[in-house]
């Protein structure tokens, strides 16, 4: 195998990962000991981009509403669909008409799923 000679080019990448991870770890663990200690109750609230945190339900043990899960799932699906579009676009000349029809069918299939979610109330935030 001729892999080992080429793999040494990745060593700086691994060093970068270790440095970045170590920096993050150091910041988080050392901050309570190095920084000033000023206790403020607001600092212990949930952080939600600076706005007032949306109220979590008390019943059910404070579970996150399922709408968050639906939104996240839909994002993942369309993100992966976008990822599939990149190789198609790069090779669009070679793939020709057949490829175009196939990719339109693919986007259409995902669009069917989106139509279902839309019409059956999956996009309502309640």
């Amino acid at each position: 195998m001729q892999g080992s000679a080429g793999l040494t080019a990745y060593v700086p990448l691994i060093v970068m990962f270790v440095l970045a991870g170590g920096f993050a770890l150091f910041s988080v663990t050392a901050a309570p000991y190095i920084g000033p200690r000023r206790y403020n109750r607001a600092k212990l609230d949930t952080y939600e981009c600076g706005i007032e945190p949306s109220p979590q339900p008390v019943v059910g043990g404070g579970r996150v509403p399922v709408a968050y899960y639906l939104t996240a799932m839909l994002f993942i699906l369309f993100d992966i669909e976008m990822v599939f579009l990149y190789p198609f676009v790069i090779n669009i000349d070679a793939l020709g008409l057949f490829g175009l029809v196939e990719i339109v069918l693919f986007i259409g299939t995902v669009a069917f799923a989106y139509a279902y979610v839309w019409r059956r109330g999956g996009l309502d935030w309640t």
Partner: protein
Amino acid sequence: MGSQSFSDALGVDYGALAPLLIVLGGACVSVLLEAVLPRVRRRSVQLVFSLAVVVVALAAVIIRATSGAGDVVVLAGSLSVDAPGLFLWGTLLALAVPSVLMLADRSVEPGGVFVADPEALAEAQERVGAGSLRSTSSGLPSGTGTDTHGVVGRRGGAGPEPTTPPEMHTEIFPFVLFALGGMLAFSAANDLLTMFVALEVLSLPLYLLCGLARRRRLLSQEAAVKYFLLGAFASAFFLYGVALLYGYAGSVRLADIAASAAGPLRSDALLFAGLALLVVGLMFKASVGPFHTWTPDVYQGAPTPVTAFMAACTKVAAFGAILRVFTVAFGTTALEWRGVLWAVAIASMVIGTVLGITQTDLKRMVAYSSVAHAGFILIGCLAITPAGLSGTLFYLLAYGFTTIAILGLVSLVRSGDGEAGHLSGYAGLAQRSPVVAAALSFCLLALAGVPLTSGFTAKFAVFSAGLADGMAPLVIVGLVCSAIAAFFYLRVIVLMYFSDPAPDGPTVSLPGPMTTVAITLGVAVTLLLGVLPTAALEWAGAGTFLG
């Protein structure tokens, strides 16, 4: 490069792929129908559409099989459309017809056997609320998540009009079509990655279908969670096996794995480790012991039509994949790994029969008997000969229809709370309903392998193939286990005919046309394959797998 030659170079053979494209395309259109149809028309349109898709796909398989077109490897070598593959496709689609009929049936369980659609439920609650306000009695029942039976039954006082239970979810139709498409691809997959993707496509809708029962909802959800967790585990084993085999052969195609196994002398550790992990994943799906632990709980908890669909079609698809992997990828090295799989087959037969004796719930008994039958089918798979192939394919066809008939009959025996699963509920059934008892006895005798039923012909074919290939100990264990299993089949028959029914025991509900057609089809095929098996045996033995 023109698009014509490109699609030909890829191997897009529409004639060969037609059944798969019809089923998967139908599933996508079914999702669209779910989106655009108004609720009142949804169920009938979806039912007709799903049945039409399955029937057209079955017609396409028959046309392809009788057209004389040769075996082809399509889609850049990922699917193989050959004679045994077409037999498996035909079996899957033929078994799907009674399954869809049973899944959509509303006569046995009012409103349908699945959980109520939320819009229908809200409507029913409004009606109940209006009715009870009008008759000035206690207020609305609380909670939208409670059992629909409670919503309907808790009408205050004398309600003015009889309420029908709310309609069931109609998303089950696309689920069934997607699962069926996955099964078609799983049994035709020519490389391991396609097989893995098809395994997930067939499994995920089944996990969902198992959890959507209207009655005994907690049990159903528990079955779905167990199936999902164990299925994810088994898929992980499968994938690890695929990775090891890729490391060994440099390719995931089944034919390439066989070619590199026949190559120059080198360590076969990766090959057999990969095979072992692959076998774990495949045997889980086929519910072969000792990888069967999900089967009793899932068969018992899932709605009975879903159990019928799973027991029949998943087994056909899984054994189709097992046959293909054993024959095409590992056929040349068979002498080295068959001994280990003898132990798996013996374990499956023994576990299925011994634990089946102790069961008191009929669906769990059917589950353990399916484990035993999986052991018998595995004997046919291990005989990597044309006789073994045709015997196994015939067994899958026969077993599928018998299972659908049995589970359809089981869904008819009901008490006030839904199905009466416990064996004591079947006491004296012959006095309450002779037809149902006779049909159930016939199907149980078919499972036991009594002559004049398809079970006998199937077992004969598989065991003779096993004997011819030098697996006499396995066949002896199989015969002994068949005799032991006959005990718990006959116990039910004796209970039905020679016991007195309990005065407040379960009754047999009259099935609607769809369940009747499904059960009749199952019983008729069981009788037909027992009396005139030669045509089906010839179709099953028509060809061999294409590498």
